[in-house]
């Protein structure tokens, strides 16, 4: 696994070039590890969900409340499609198709924003509050935690999009698109789990 090092000779202007002892990109590995810990955060919330729904054997959803499975299903479709458009944008960038790249980033951003909007709208109309029951608490807990991640993801995508329109990135340098991209794909994948656990099961 040892990549031969390129030890640079003039060492007066800076540190020596670090040896690359792994084929994995540092940024990608970092993002991967970050996502692992993110998964564990969700894991903790799912533990709470497990205790409230399974161990305590509370009825789900709480008596007298119901969950808008259909709307949330549509919302799921929207979020997943945003992953597709993002992928589209990335491939476009690698083919140096700037227009497709910009269009892709923009649609991705808008789709994400729509998801978040519908989610908030759902909170307004759902008819129960986290203060009512533990089921309510964990419902808002899980969906809210995910919503927060969507929000952060949108911030990242927003930066990338602005930079895209300022003409940054190219087929050669697209790390700055890929790394936030991975995060966005993770946010989407995690939603599928949340959706299944909260709405479907």
């Amino acid at each position, binding site marked *: *696994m*040892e990549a*031969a*090092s390129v*030890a*640079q*000779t003039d*060492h007066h*202007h*800076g*540190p*020596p*070039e*670090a*040896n*690359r*002892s*792994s084929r*994995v*990109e*540092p940024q990608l*590995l*970092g993002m991967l*590890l*970050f996502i*692992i*810990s*993110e998964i*564990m*955060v969700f*894991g*903790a*919330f799912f*533990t*709470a969900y497990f*205790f*409230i729904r399974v*161990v*305590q054997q*509370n009825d789900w959803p*709480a008596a007298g409340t119901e969950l808008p499975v259909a709307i949330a299903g549509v919302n799921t479709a929207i979020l997943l499609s945003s992953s597709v458009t993002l992928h589209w944008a990335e491939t476009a960038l690698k083919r140096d198709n700037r227009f497709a790249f910009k269009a892709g980033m923009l649609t991705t951003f808008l789709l994400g924003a729509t998801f978040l909007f519908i989610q908030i709208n759902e909170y307004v109309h759902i008819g129960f509050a*986290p*203060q*009512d*029951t*533990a*089921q*309510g*608490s*964990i419902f*808002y*807990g899980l969906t809210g935690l995910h919503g927060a991640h969507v929000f952060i993801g949108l911030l990242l995508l927003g*930066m990338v999009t*602005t*930079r895209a329109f*300022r003409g*940054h990135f190219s087929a050669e340098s697209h790390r*700055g698109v890929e790394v936030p991209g991975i995060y966005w794909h993770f946010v989407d994948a995690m939603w599928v789990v949340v959706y299944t656990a909260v709405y479907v099961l």
Partner: protein
Amino acid sequence: MTVARRLQAPGLPRAGLGLLMGVALAYAIVLPVRSLYGFDPVLDGEAVTIVSLLAAPFGFLFGLGAFDYWFYWASGRPTRAEDHSGHGAKSWRDYFRVNTDHKVIGIQYTVTSFFFLLVGGALAMLIRAELAQPGMQFVSTDGYNGLFSVHASILIFLFIIPVFAGLANFVLPLMIGAPDMAFPRLNALSYWLLPIAGTMMLLSFLAPGGSFATGWTAYAPLSTDVPVGQLFFTVGVQFAGASSVATALNFLVTIITMRAPGMSFWRMPLLVWANFSTSLLVVIATPFVAASQFFVLLDRALGFNFFVPDRGGDVLMYQHVFWFYSHPAVYIMMLPGFGIISEILSVKARKPIFGYRMMAFSLLAIVVLGFTVWAHHMFVSGMQEWIRVPMMITTAIIAVPTGIKIFSWLATLWRGVLHLDTPMLFALGFLTMFVLGGISGVMLAMIPVVIHVSDTYFIVAHIHYVLFGGSLFTIFAGVYYWFPKMTGRMYDERLGKLHFWMTFIGFNATFGPMHLIGLKGMPRRVADYADQFAGWNLFISLASFVVGLSTLVFVYNMVASWRGGPRAEANPWRALTLEWQVSSPPPTFNFDEVPTVVGGPYEYGVPGAVHGVFKKPAEVTATAGGQE
């Protein structure tokens, strides 16, 4: 510099401004929202406190300049290419800036956390003063609860965990032949999160109703209905946790992607292995403590029902989530120490580490097993009974990989040439004391015994034999061992030995008797106790003051030697690992050129053995002898 320009340039003045703006923001958010929802009173102290606790730190970090670069990058403005002005520390002032040099950060980390050792220790002195006699002397009952809660939280989250990260920050990149950590700016950020968390926890003493007083475990529902001081723990832990996750991530990436040519995994010093394992634990486990405190925060601030039984909440859920982090956390507080001991013992016994590979494997075994034992803290919590026996077995089995390490260290000593200077004394002190703490741990794993001793001073004894006799002894050993490398000066050997013997004797006199009074039935976390325990407690308190004094000897030695100690040569211990092959203190950029590793790190006694050479790989590969 004019005041205005001071406030614009990144640095402490701007940070102070940011802090104030954070608090202002808190008011700006809370007041409108509350009036919007027609809450009453519109100005609610607790609400403002919560938002300020979250907002002010970010204001501080912005002001300090921790995020500047990323803003430039994100907004697509031209980022100043790293001109390395952030490297090295020319004057003491540079330690109060955002600095990206892992050596500077390492020292920032270490010094900061030792300050918190003094504070946390000082609180322990107050604890012992109160407990010297039965009845109440100095503090109120919940004042006392506050003392041990802050004592433990500070020492765990702001001393043991960060000080290990600090030592590794300085040493680890040098050891693997890397010019710096993989993400220097993230590294700086994770340091600056520490003072925030620590200040927050200490500020809680000023909160109305006193500091947080629910122990470092902050069990719900107690933590959801005590005064506002609790929030300073709930939020403070978030920052401490974020800091250690960021560092762990940094270590993992650095170790995986930046090892010098020839430094295969099986040629890494065991300190690197130890921090690798620890970082895995941190990245996987720490999110759980963050979540557990989120739940408390939500229940408190927004009236959620996670821990409200009448509304379907589950009280024991808190403990499961908390201990799923906090058991691994005890290994987060021990594994780096194991690494330090491996370095010191082989160097000071002039022998290779006995069973190097098993040493590495046992670390990984502990990481895996560490996730399967959390409920051993809940044997008397009333949880489902069937969980207990499986957890008893896994808990006991953890003694096996730990035993492998202990016995391998003993075998490393055997027939060596023992240099009995201060680092070695502390290393041997660790060997002898940690075994006692570990064995009492195995006793605690045996359910019938723990039913009796749980929540008694027997636990307090165990805690301190593993955390003080274990972790803290390794930290002292490590600090003496790398002091020459970090400061370029030698410490005073005589004071060092004095420090060791005072600590060793005082420590045993303090915490040994706790086993007995615990078994006799003295509960922990009590400000007042039955008269039958009066004699022992007085003895313990007196002994604990000796430990306190010994620490002052240490502080004096460090300060005096750093300022006026004799200059240290590059490699005073004749060690093989790479950090000793460069000058003391190391050059700003660690190496002129990345060294090449040609052998194992502990080949003492092997004629002409080298670990790393400072030639370009091309010229070396000829001489490089295959594997270790």
